[in-house]
């Protein structure tokens, strides 16, 4: 049990402007299930990408020792050759191909380029038996459920003679039963001597199956628990995951909260747009007062973005039910247009895909959501447009040589300021900010915080979604926690600790 299979030593990986991994070490013993845990953005996935060769040797610093041999993987094939297989969060199966074809994709059972289908099918059958999936090898992937697809991924890993299996959030998209099965299977494999690394947000699950737990935070290894040697509890892990101080990261704010509720959501439910049986949001209730900043905390997959987009002109989901009240009046937004007109703005978490037109310039992006303001009878007043765009640029402190600069050429922080500016230009009463500081540096973050505070002071109501708990605690007046589509808590920010938030975020039905 104590023989070491993998050792990662002082791994440091830098992306432009961000240190994603800082002197990380990971020590995995043979035949164990090793849990890797940390907040969103703590560096778990990056570490696994370094290990599997997605980030090739040379783009990071540090050493990887696998079975006591130094490894310098240039690509994913080289790591797979040694038996290190990673199963990503987003499944990488091709829906239109059969199970057998997917399992042996890139590893076809062929002689001189001609595929031996009989061999392929027979081997697939054996593999499917191992993962207890009772489906014909010829079945197409698209006809399988998510849980079954997950099993196919594992079968595929087995076909590669896997020694170390890495699973990135394998149960995130699975229901209770499928999750149980999967974990049971992992335990069986452990008995047969296989080692796995399990990345998950679900603490209970990890505590149930893991032998060791490594906690990452902000790209650093906090500690590794050996559960045979010491007692570990959920609270201990949560503390390690979030345990950092709120330093002077947040600008001062003039509180100017009025008593009137500007925006209120009642019994809001929605279903997955493609899988209409799957309920994503369950009777969500929330409200925000004038001048108030509320936060929505939730782990990945909790339905934060889905909630925001479904509220914003039904941009997400099917079978949406529930009511929205704006200043006490019931309103219904059938389209985004209506939502904007009645004073709601949504800043998407993904500015490149949903927020900006990258090939267009700063000016056109700033004015796009409210062209009415600079036009008369549909004819644009381009002079007025330039004046308005310049004034927003100044207000947001967007650093660009000119408003005619193409958005692609701006830094992430400045792009984000343009997105915010674009929505401020629509003069909203309610701003829904989805991860407003994702992927931007500390300086730009501070500026964005200042803008948000300023908006609240001027009487706007802000709903802020963020994966970073300290950010929510530093900025918000109240924080709602969202877990699997349900609001599980409504906590005054001054009373909130990261531990309590994390508890509410991971546990349904506590409140």
């Amino acid at each position: 049990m104590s023989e070491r299979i993998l050792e990662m030593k002082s791994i440091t990986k830098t992306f432009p402007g961000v240190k994603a991994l800082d002197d990380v070490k990971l020590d995995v013993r043979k035949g164990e299930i090793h849990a890797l845990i940390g907040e969103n953005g703590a560096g778990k996935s990056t570490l696994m990408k370094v290990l599997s060769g997605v980030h090739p040797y040379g783009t990071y610093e540090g050493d990887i020792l696998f079975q006591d041999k130094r490894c310098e993987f240039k690509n994913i094939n080289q790591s797979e050759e040694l038996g290190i297989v990673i199963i990503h969060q987003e499944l990488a199966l091709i829906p239109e191909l059969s199970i057998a074809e997917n399992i042996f994709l890139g590893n076809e059972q062929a002689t001189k380029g001609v595929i031996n289908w009989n061999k392929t099918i027979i081997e697939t059958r054996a593999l499917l038996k191992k993962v207890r999936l009772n489906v014909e090898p010829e079945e197409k992937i698209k006809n399988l459920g998510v849980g079954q697809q997950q099993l196919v991924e594992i079968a595929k890993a087995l076909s590669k003679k896997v020694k170390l299996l890495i699973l990135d959030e394998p149960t995130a998209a699975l229901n209770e039963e499928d999750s149980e099965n999967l974990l049971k299977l992992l335990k069986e494999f452990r008995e047969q001597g296989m080692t796995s690394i399990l990345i998950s947000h679900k603490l209970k699950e990890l505590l149930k199956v893991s032998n060791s737990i490594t906690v990452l935070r902000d790209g650093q290894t906090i500690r590794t628990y050996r559960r045979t040697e010491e007692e570990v509890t959920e609270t201990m892990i949560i503390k390690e995951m979030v345990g950092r101080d709120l330093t002077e990261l947040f600008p001062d704010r003039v509180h100017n909260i009025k008593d009137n509720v500007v925006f209120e959501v009642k019994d809001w439910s929605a279903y997955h747009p493609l899988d209409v049986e799957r309920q994503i949001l369950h009777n969500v209730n929330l409200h925000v007062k004038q001048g108030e900043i509320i936060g929505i905390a939730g782990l990945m997959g909790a339905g934060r973005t889905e909630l925001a987009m479904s509220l914003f002109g039904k941009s997400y989901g099917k079978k949406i039910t529930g009511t929205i009240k704006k200043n006490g009046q019931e309103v219904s937004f059938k389209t985004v247009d209506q939502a904007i007109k009645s004073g709601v703005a949504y800043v998407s978490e993904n500015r490149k895909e949903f927020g900006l037109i990258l090939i267009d310039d700063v000016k056109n992006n700033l004015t796009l959501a409210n062209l009415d303001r600079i036009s008369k009878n549909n004819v644009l007043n381009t002079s007025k447009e330039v004046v308005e765009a310049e004034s927003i640029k100044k207000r947001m402190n967007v650093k660009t040589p000119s408003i005619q600069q193409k958005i692609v050429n701006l830094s992430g922080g400045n792009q984000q300021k343009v997105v915010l500016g674009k929505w401020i230009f629509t003069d909203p009463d309610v701003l829904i900010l989805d991860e407003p500081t994702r992927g931007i540096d500390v300086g730009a973050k501070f500026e964005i915080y200042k803008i948000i505070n300023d908006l609240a002071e001027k009487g706007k109501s802000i709903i802020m979604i963020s994966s970073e708990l300290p950010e929510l605690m530093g900025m918000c007046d109240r924080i709602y926690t969202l877990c699997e589509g349900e609001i599980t808590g409504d906590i005054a920010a001054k009373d909130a600790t990261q531990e309590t938030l994390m508890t509410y975020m991971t546990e349904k039905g506590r409140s």
Partner: protein
Amino acid sequence: MEGLKQLLSNNVRKFGMIIALIGIALLFQILTDGILLTPLNVTNIIMQNSYIIVLAIGMMLIIITGEIDLSVGSVAAFVGAVAGVLMVTMDFPVFAGILICLAIGAIIGAWQGFWVAYVNIPSFIVTLAGMLIFRGLTLVVLQGQTIAPFPDGFRGLSSAFVPDVFGGEGEIQLFTVVVGIVLSVVYILSELKIRRTDLKYDFKTISFPLFIVKLVVFTIVINLFTYVLAQYEGIPYVLIVLFVLIIGYTFVMNKTVIGRHIYAVGGNANAAQLSGIKTKKMKFWVFVNMGVLAALCGMIFAGRLNAATPQAGNLFELDAIAAAVIGGASFTGGVGTVFGAVIGALVMGVLNNGMSLMGIGIDWQQAIKGLVLLAAVAFDVLNKNK
């Protein structure tokens, strides 16, 4: 000088194609011993390419939204056929006939737009089907025959000239020269007005000497052009149609909310949707617009041929797409200008005309045009990667 450099480097693409057009024209001017730019031939180039320019404008809008329309040639043929039946066989009055034909174009556009925008079928498929459907219907309407001749009023649309109201005798058509002068005055006044607003708002402007140079150059170009036309028969009616279309569509694309929305839909449909733009509706109407322009193209072509024939409009869609692409459209959407499409169409048109004058066979013409198309796009891609 800095200003000029800046101006040029910012607009390599825009100026690139104009320079290419001028280069090609000069090349053939030399190769054809000066025939290319004779008054007769310049008039010819305009009339030969008028219907492609009309299509290219519509195609540019389609490509800007990130779609494609392969059916325009067939639609043009179909509308031409209907025009023949209406005006030749059934003796409809010309004006009513034209209106009905434009309406038919709009309906066809709406049909294709519906499938593309609301049913989410790729436009390649929808319009490939349309290409077959309307070619087939053309044969049905014409019963495989050619219908001719059209009434004079209809033919005038594509082959008559504005008469000289000043009754100028001799070599020069006075009216055309006057039009040139009037246009230059309008141009100078509008430029001055724009400059005044720019200065008022303290916008960036080109330096005053450069501004004067620009005015002089364009004034000379306008008057040279009308002077050349005046030496032949003057201004063809179809040129007025083109002028109105180019000015109108440039205005819509640059100066209206609709234009901005079209660019946004092509630039990033998701972001446009979340900015409150009705992306489906936008796509639908762009196809309706294409239908109307294809109908206009069909009528101009039928009028020029003075016949409605089953083969009309063959491969027009490819000429229109090539014109748009040479003129700066990108298949990923969101990029392109109406003016660019016109330049693109003229590049192809001058190539065609020049090679014909030189007696180069249709076989080599096709091959050379293909290479030019590829070169234009390659130039653009390489330029972007720089």
